[in-house]
């Protein structure tokens, strides 16, 4: 692959390495192919330190436009502005409102979280005990997503700024959030967390998996425990095992963002901005790629579409 | 030495125990200005431990030390140095990554606010190096020196302290005759200048030559004292061992049989330009004499496949042998009792049992690779019995055996393999008279049982006493061969130092390969 030679370079930078981002990569690549652009997709494995040096080196290479998912918006304003000075900067997936990014492309995680909460309610109309599984709580998006679930289950008002610390139980009048277990992307640990929950709370009503790999881990554990179907599952994202679970009625449903669209739209917008066309930027500087709830009835069609996007 | 004089250093009722061992019990020791006190005792008698305590390296469990009549704090090297007590350890203790000068002044560097004064070090090192007659550049790394040179650096280091009490723990065990003479000259000189010396050695001849007084330890207890006039071989031995041991060992020569070991133009990696040819016959004890660094160890190690020979032909009982690894040599019927007993001879941490069976496990194995514990036990008990190895039990870690008994374990390990040829490198280095005699007898029994024996020794005494035939090495080649009849110290020394020009031609060196 020859980079440069005059042709403008663009980059799509993620906040880590995850199948979720593989979908976004497909979207970005598809758009790049259609527009005939040179787009590099970079996934930092070493956290904020590596994301910083990646962005620096992209600027060094004279990249014209960068779409980035900040690991921690509040503290990366300086870095993002440095990027904005030297290149077109837009954010995706997780926004940095305080920075000079031109536009944000993504989902409203708090709302998405509330959608997931609704799935739980459908699964447990009578109410019950709920355990939440998630990779990390650092990122705004994961924090908001979890908060959305909790607030929905407790029928609280719409307030993204709320935060319940992860320890300890949260009791509502119908639903009880037993706790939130993190696994820092360690799949074995993610499964162990579920197993231990089943040991500790045999009467847990619904397990909520908020990162792409959590629902599969939940299903694995349930299957081995012979509790598949008995304990309800509310999912997030579109892991194959999750979709299969919905199809087999083991999962109530899942809330899918549209990472493919993050990638696709990001590249489109970058192209437009590079061409000096600012009409693509809405007034609120927020291009919403809404999340959707996928249930048994819609899963097949969604899955087919997904496969075609992944070229499978 | 007038006993009414004020002793320079006095140790009272020193006690020291190690896990499972009582090294010293209520030991007393006095040394006066301007005398050489010889400290005698069998392996494990406690000599080194006592000296380490005097030098502050180890802390006694009980007892006091007085310098010039004043009690000094124990267990501190600095304090000992302040009192002018310097110790040359039994084992080499040098930082091989530092220069000669840096080692000589280690811990006593001349400095200003921690800033080292290299000039002073260079100058002063030169002085002490000259004292011991070592013409090397003080800025050379110690790692590049030979063992003999390292030993001399140790001595120079101790001299640089300008000690009032200088302790030498078996300093000559790795020195050649010439270097030893040099050392004795220095010692005599220091004595003249009123320095007190404590001298430890298992070579009684040296002690007779140098000592003004002898103190003997046995099993960690004072066993007695001899004044200058009372010092005699037999007297010393009686105090050490508690029985008589004949003065010099005299071999009762047997009649050698067929050739068991034959070397033709063997070249070792250490001396690639030289080649060695020799034969050893069954029942024969052949001595290999030479100065330190003559390349004797390298020759044995080459034969044994430790550092495989570069060229040449080796035959054991006529069968050709190409040792690429000790395993080949062992299978070929060779056994090596190495120079460095503690590192190469025994697995210190493991039991007498495991050490004795180590070499024969493979031969006695069951169904391919299973341990044959019956055979192991049989060998262990037999060797302990036949070699009279002194140990509390089969499971005792070899670390806690005395030097002599460790050496017996090494020999026992090979005896179990009943090899055709024994190669022994300094088999009695650092071993006490009693044990020495037993080792000698062992070597004779081995020979009598039809094995061929080739042994390296830097102790002329034992070469003269034990060898049927002596080969002399110099700078990697054989400079001559002496039959029992022709044996004499002078002849050996001339050959060892290069020898008459003719001698070197004799043994096919200088073949340009």
């Amino acid at each position, binding site marked *: 692959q020859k980079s440069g030679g005059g042709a403008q370079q663009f980059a799509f930078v993620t906040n880590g*390495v*995850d*199948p979720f981002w*593989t979908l976004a990569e497909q979207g970005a690549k598809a758009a790049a192919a259609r527009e005939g652009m040179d787009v590099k997709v970079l*996934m930092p*494995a070493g956290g904020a330190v590596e994301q910083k040096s990646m962005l620096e080196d992209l600027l060094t290479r004279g990249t014209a436009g960068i779409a980035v998912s900040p690991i921690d918006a509040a503290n990366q304003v300086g870095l993002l502005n440095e990027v904005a000075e030297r290149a077109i900067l837009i954010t995706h997936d997780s926004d940095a409102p305080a920075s000079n990014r031109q536009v944000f492309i993504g989902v409203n995680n708090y709302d998405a979280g509330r959608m997931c909460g609704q799935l739980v309610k459908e699964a447990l109309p009578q109410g019950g005990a709920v355990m939440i599984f998630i990779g990390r709580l650092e990122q705004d998006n994961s924090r908001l997503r979890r908060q959305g679930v909790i607030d929905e289950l407790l029928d609280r008002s719409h307030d993204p700024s709320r935060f319940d610390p*992860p*320890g*300890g139980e949260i009791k509502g009048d119908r639903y009880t959030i037993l*706790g939130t*277990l*993190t696994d820092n*992307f*360690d*799949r*074995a640990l993610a499964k*162990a*967390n579920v*197993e*231990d*929950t*089943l*040991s*500790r709370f*045999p009467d847990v009503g619904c397990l909520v998996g908020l990162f792409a*790999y959590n629902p*599969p*881990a939940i299903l*694995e554990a349930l299957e*081995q*425990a012979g509790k598949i179907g008995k304990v309800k599952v509310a999912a997030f994202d579109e892991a*194959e*095992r999750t979709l*299969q679970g919905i199809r087999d009625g083991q999962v109530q449903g899942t809330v899918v963002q549209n990472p493919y669209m993050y990638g696709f739209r990001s590249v489109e917008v970058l192209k437009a901005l590079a061409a000096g066309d600012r009409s693509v930027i809405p007034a609120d500087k927020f291009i919403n790629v809404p999340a959707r709830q996928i249930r048994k009835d819609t899963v097949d069609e969604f899955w087919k579409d997904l496969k075609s996007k992944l070229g499978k | 030495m007038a006993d009414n004089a004020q002793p320079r250093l006095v140790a009272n009722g020193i006690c020291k*125990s*190690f*896990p499972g061992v009582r090294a010293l019990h209520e030991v007393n020791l006095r040394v006066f200005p301007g005398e050489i006190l010889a400290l005698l005792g069998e392996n494990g008698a406690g000599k080194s431990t006592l000296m380490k305590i005097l030098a502050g390296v180890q802390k006694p*469990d009980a007892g006091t030390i007085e310098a010039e009549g004043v009690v000094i704090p124990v267990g501190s090297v600095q304090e000992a140095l302040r009192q002018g007590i310097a110790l040359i350890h039994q084992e080499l203790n040098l930082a091989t990554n530092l220069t000669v000068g840096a080692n000589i002044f280690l811990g006593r560097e001349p400095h200003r606010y921690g800033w080292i004064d290299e000039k002073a070090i260079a100058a002063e090192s030169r002085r002490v190096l000259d004292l011991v007659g070592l013409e090397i550049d003080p800025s050379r790394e110690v790692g590049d020196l030979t063992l003999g040179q390292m030993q001399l650096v140790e001595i120079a280091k101790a001299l640089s302290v300008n000690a009032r009490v200088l302790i030498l723990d078996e300093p000559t065990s790795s020195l050649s005759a010439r270097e030893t003479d040099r050392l004795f000259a220095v010692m005599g000189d220091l004595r003249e200048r009123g320095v007190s010396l404590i001298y430890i050695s298992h070579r009684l001849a040296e002690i007779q030559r140098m000592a003004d007084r002898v103190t003997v330890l046995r099993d960690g207890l004072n066993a007695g004292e001899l004044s200058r006039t009372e010092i005699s071989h037999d007297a010393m031995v009686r105090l050490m061992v508690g029985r008589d041991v004949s003065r010099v060992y005299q071999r009762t020569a047997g009649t050698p049989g067929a050739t068991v070991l034959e070397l033709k133009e063997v070249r070792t990696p250490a001396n690639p330009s030289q080649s060695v040819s020799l034969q050893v016959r069954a029942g024969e004890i052949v001595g290999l004499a030479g100065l330190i660094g003559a390349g004797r160890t390298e020759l044995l190690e080459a034969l044994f496949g430790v550092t495989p020979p570069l060229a040449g032909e080796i035959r054991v009982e006529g069968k050709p042998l190409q040792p690429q*690894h*000790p*395993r080949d*040599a*062992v299978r070929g019927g060779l056994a090596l009792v*190495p120079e460095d007993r503690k*590192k*190469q001879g*025994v*697995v*210190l*941490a*493991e039991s007498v049992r*495991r050490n004795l069976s*180590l*070499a024969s*496990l493979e031969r006695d*194995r069951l169904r391919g*690779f*299973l*341990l044959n514990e019956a055979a192991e036990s049989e060998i262990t008990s037999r060797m302990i019995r036949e070699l009279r190895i002194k140990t509390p039990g089969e499971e005792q870690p070899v670390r806690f055996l005395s030097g002599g008994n460790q050496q017996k374990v090494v020999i026992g*390990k090979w005896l179990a393999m009943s090899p055709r040829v024994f190669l022994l490198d300094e088999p009695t280095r650092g071993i006490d008279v009693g044990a020495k005699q037993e080792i000698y007898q062992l070597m004779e029994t081995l020979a009598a049982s039809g094995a061929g024996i080739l042994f390296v020794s830097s102790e002329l005494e034992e070469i003269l006493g034990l060898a049927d035939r002596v080969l002399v090495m110099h700078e990697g080649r054989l400079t001559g061969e002496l039959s029992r009849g022709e044996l004499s110290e002078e002849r050996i020394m001339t050959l060892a130092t290069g020898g008459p020009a003719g001698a070197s031609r004799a043994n096919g060196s200088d073949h340009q390969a």
Partner: protein
Amino acid sequence: MKRIIGIAVLLLVVYLATWIMADAFSGRAVFMSGYNQENLLRRIALYGILGIGVSLVIITGGIDLSLGSVVCLVGVGVPWLAVGQGWPMPVVLLLALVLPLAIGLGHGLLVTRLRLQPFIVTLCGLLIYRGVTRGFTQDQTAGFGNGFKALRWLANGEIPLFSGFGIPVPLLILGVVAALVAVFLNRTIYGRYLLALGNSEEAARFSGIQTDRMVIVAYVICSFLAGLAGLLFVLDVNLAQPVDFGNFYELFAIAAAVLGGCSLRGGTGTVLGVLAGTALIQVLRNMINLVFPAYQNMEYAVIGLVILAGVVADELAKRAVARQKAGS
């Protein structure tokens, strides 16, 4: 043997403590439920295989930091090839068992022939195998979906014993591995050689033992077992991500071995000890999840403290014994 008693007692204490706390807190059989015990045993089995492997290398006086990355290579590689690339599973499995052998051989040769330091060789291994895995998978997660149920039985199957409890299959695999290694160490001449050279390579070599070969064997077995563990891990979890699958597992394996009485100076180590060490760490993790889920993010700290406490106690005990002997 002595060396094991300490860790065994510690394990027992932690085990009972967890039992009491977990089941008392909830008034039900939580920790002692057949289900939880199965999970616990399965985890012990998977990590135990790693611990036993590395203990052999540690006995030679070496170390293997590449375990975690070998777990990653195999754990990701198998589903990636079998599902992603559609290779026939038998071929893939063969590769999964052979490749680690080659890796171990490489480590062994570099350590013995080139006399490189094990720490460095295997540190490079740690970097290389993970990097390569991330490279050929393009960082994509690999998993079995709902396929290969039969094969996955090896990792998540169980032999029903009585109602509600069965012996996890991996535990049987661990049993076989442990038995073989224990026999190897204590009943074969090669085990003797390994221990001897661990104490003094030179002395062993001077006794005619081919120490280099033995060391190579140790590295080969170690990497092989890492590969086996990696296979079982992915069969159990069903999906693996190149960037973090097996991260830090080498540290837990080494910690378990040391807790179990292996000295990093070489020459000592027992299979039973390693198993006890592994069990201790897994029971601790279980305890945190069952009893103190709120402190789950301090898991590492707790494990670290317990390991430290273990080695300190062990050291103090040894000294007490020594002082006793000296006294007598």
